[in-house]
């Protein structure tokens, strides 16, 4: 693609992304309000000492402490990395297995990855004490091969760039009713697939090799991350597809896409649940690591943080429910059934992947002290604001993509 074509495509995306009916504008406006408020609270309250040189405010307004140095932000960071990684599943179905249904909608997997990665980056920035310094220092990678955060920075920005390229290329071709060329797709998939797995693997590696945190210190952490990512990511995309079918006239998704994706998410859920089961066995049966056991008790029995174990049991309950429902043919063969299974899956993985994967490592802390953590309103508002930005970007990118798909597939396929 030439520079001119790229510019034209960007213009097309902006034009189409911002065009729509009343409901669409209502949605954008609502998200915008939340986003602006979240950014305001971050700049003007939580990071006021940095941006406004104020004596008040600071991260002290969050629930975090020296005992629990990472909280809500990093928890959701982990979840969205998983969602981003799983976008690759659609690219694989489309370009490696050459499934026509997946080919049609694969670009939406890239949209989801871009939006998720932007949430990921914003959550890190929101959590960072000194974001301006970080923006100068991080790209220089001063401690590169040694610090896992450096690796994470590289793979996440790399994956973001790859997905943006894939997105612009696909939209650019489809909107002119041209198909994608293999000269682009083959290298694209070869580069993107390992990095997709890489972003989640590296995110797990940040924590799994720390001897300081027994609860994380298991080689099962990275596999567990990747497993449930392949449940939550595709399930979220299914929900988006169902929504798009209802709200965009003439846009149809091949039923086989739903069927196959539900197979994948169910398989991933089963593996994820199995991993959890295996970890719990290791810890409860006869562990000689009192710290690990104590941290697990916080998680399972709700000592010190009842809502934490609520989330954990939510994961088990909804995860099992989603699996059972997916096994019943009459449920999984209706659009409503698929939507329900997908919704359960997403919520189950939020239960598993967010706070319950981060917090137990800190409760009790490394000196055995219990200092519970509860997110404060400041944290919650900032987190919601960042998610609003993410969904805003999701909507603005998805709309032109769907339009371009419809141009290319014009009634030719259902």
């Amino acid at each position, binding site marked *: 693609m030439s520079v001119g074509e790229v510019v034209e495509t960007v213009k097309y995306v902006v034009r189409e992304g911002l065009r729509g009916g009343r409901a669409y504008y209502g949605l954008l406006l609502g998200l915008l309000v939340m986003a602006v408020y979240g950014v305001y609270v971050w700049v003007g309250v939580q990071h006021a*000492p*940095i941006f406004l040189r*104020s*004596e*008040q*405010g*600071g*991260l*002290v307004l*969050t629930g*975090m*402490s*020296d*005992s629990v*140095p*990472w909280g809500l932000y990093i928890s959701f960071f982990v979840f969205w990395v998983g969602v981003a990684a799983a976008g690759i599943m659609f690219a694989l179905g489309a370009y490696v297995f050459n499934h026509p249904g997946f080919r049609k909608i694969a670009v939406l997997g890239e949209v989801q990855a871009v939006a998720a990665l932007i949430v990921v980056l914003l959550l890190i920035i929101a*959590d*960072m*004490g*000194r*974001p301006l*310094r*970080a923006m100068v*220092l*991080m790209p220089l*990678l*001063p*401690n*590169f*091969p*040694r*610090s*896992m*955060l*450096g690796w994470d*920075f590289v793979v996440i920005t790399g994956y973001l760039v790859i997905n943006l390229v894939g997105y612009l290329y696909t939209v650019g071709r489809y909107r002119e009713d041209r198909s994608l060329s293999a000269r682009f797709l083959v290298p694209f998939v070869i580069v993107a697939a390992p990095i997709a797995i890489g972003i989640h693997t590296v995110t797990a590696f*940040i*924590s799994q090799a*720390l*001897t*300081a*945190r027994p609860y994380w210190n298991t080689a099962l952490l990275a596999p567990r991350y990747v497993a449930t990512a392949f449940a939550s990511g595709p399930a979220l995309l299914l929900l988006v597809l169902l929504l798009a079918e209802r709200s965009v006239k003439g846009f149809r998704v091949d039923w086989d896409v739903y069927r196959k994706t539900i197979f994948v998410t169910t398989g991933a859920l089963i593996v994820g649940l199995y991993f959890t089961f295996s970890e719990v066995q290791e810890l409860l049966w006869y562990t000689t690591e*009192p*710290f690990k056991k*104590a941290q697990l008790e916080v998680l399972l029995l709700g000592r010190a943080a009842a809502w934490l174990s609520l989330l954990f049991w939510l994961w088990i309950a909804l995860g099992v429910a989603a699996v059972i429902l997916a096994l019943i043919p009459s449920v999984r063969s209706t659009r409503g059934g698929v939507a329900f299974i997908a919704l359960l899956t997403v919520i189950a993985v939020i239960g598993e992947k967010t706070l319950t994967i981060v917090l137990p*490592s800190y409760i*009790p*802390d*490394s*000196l*055995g*002290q219990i200092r519970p953590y509860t997110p404060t309103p400041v944290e919650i508002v900032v987190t919601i604001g960042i998610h609003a930005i993410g969904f805003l970007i999701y909507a603005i990118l998805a709309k032109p993509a769907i339009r371009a798909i419809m141009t290319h597939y014009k009634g030719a396929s259902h």
Partner: protein
Amino acid sequence: MSGSRRVDEKRRNLLKAGVFAAGISFIGVSRSTLMSMLKPVSLSEVLGVPPRRETEETLARKAEWKEERIKEWCSRKVEEICREYGEGSEECAEARRRCEAVKVKATPARQGVAFAMALDVNKCIGCRRCAYACVMENNVARNNGIEWIKVLEAPREGEAIDFLHAKLDYTDAPKEDMVYVPVACMHCENPPCVMACPVRATWREPDGIVVVDYERCIGCRYCMTACPYGARHFNWGVPEPSVLELNPNMHILGNVPRQVHVVEKCTWCIHRTRDGGIPACVEVCPVGARVFGDLNDPESPIRRVLEEYGAFVLKPEAGTRPRFFYFFGPARTPAAKEGGGEK
């Protein structure tokens, strides 16, 4: 090079003694045999990344710059104090004296020095005077609730010190059946915090002190997650040091007043020890439970106690090789009652 190998040898023997004393042996083969066969390399050597170290000049320049900044800030505060208490007041004079005396040093590590500290668990009475002295000495902002030294109170019975039943918030001490374990940065030889930091804002100096560059830290708190000893603390709010209690003797990598959203930790009073002094906690301890010195100096007190009593470390399984040792000295303070579980 050969000098440092000799030093290494000594340290290894010492550590062997320490490990033996604690009754833990990691490998069956003699370590020195193994070491003569295997040459230790560090990953950064292999990958060609030099450890990030300030040169002496850049550090000195930074110290000068910092000193100016601190003087600007504290003269402003002095004016406020003098206005509030009156020109002739004692407070005004005190604040002025402290502010004028501010000196930010950049003393580099001395060649061939390997600092270490040891603490006699039999002597410690859990009075927390070290923790208090540390806050005063190191200009730790009083409003952020940071204490570099935490003292754990743990039940005396049982083989290992059990963190999960230890308390930080005890109110009276010493108690007969309790043991007191002060914990601060262990100045690990193999520090996971240094490994974790994405921007090299924290590193281990040649004399073994692990320091933080407050001007470089991006506040990601990965190091706090990586430290097995809860030794790193974050300035969650804007630190407000008081000029009336300011310690004017400062080191750029140590007790200069901190900023908001950066990490800080014990530096073994780098501003004292690099000039030949001892850390404030060692000085203040009323029962003399703490010993500090140069591991490479055969005459140093630290060598004497470690050779005589052996040593153990907290959480050896974390693999960080602390340079802070605990030992059981000859007598308990207060003396144990007849038949009361002497160790």
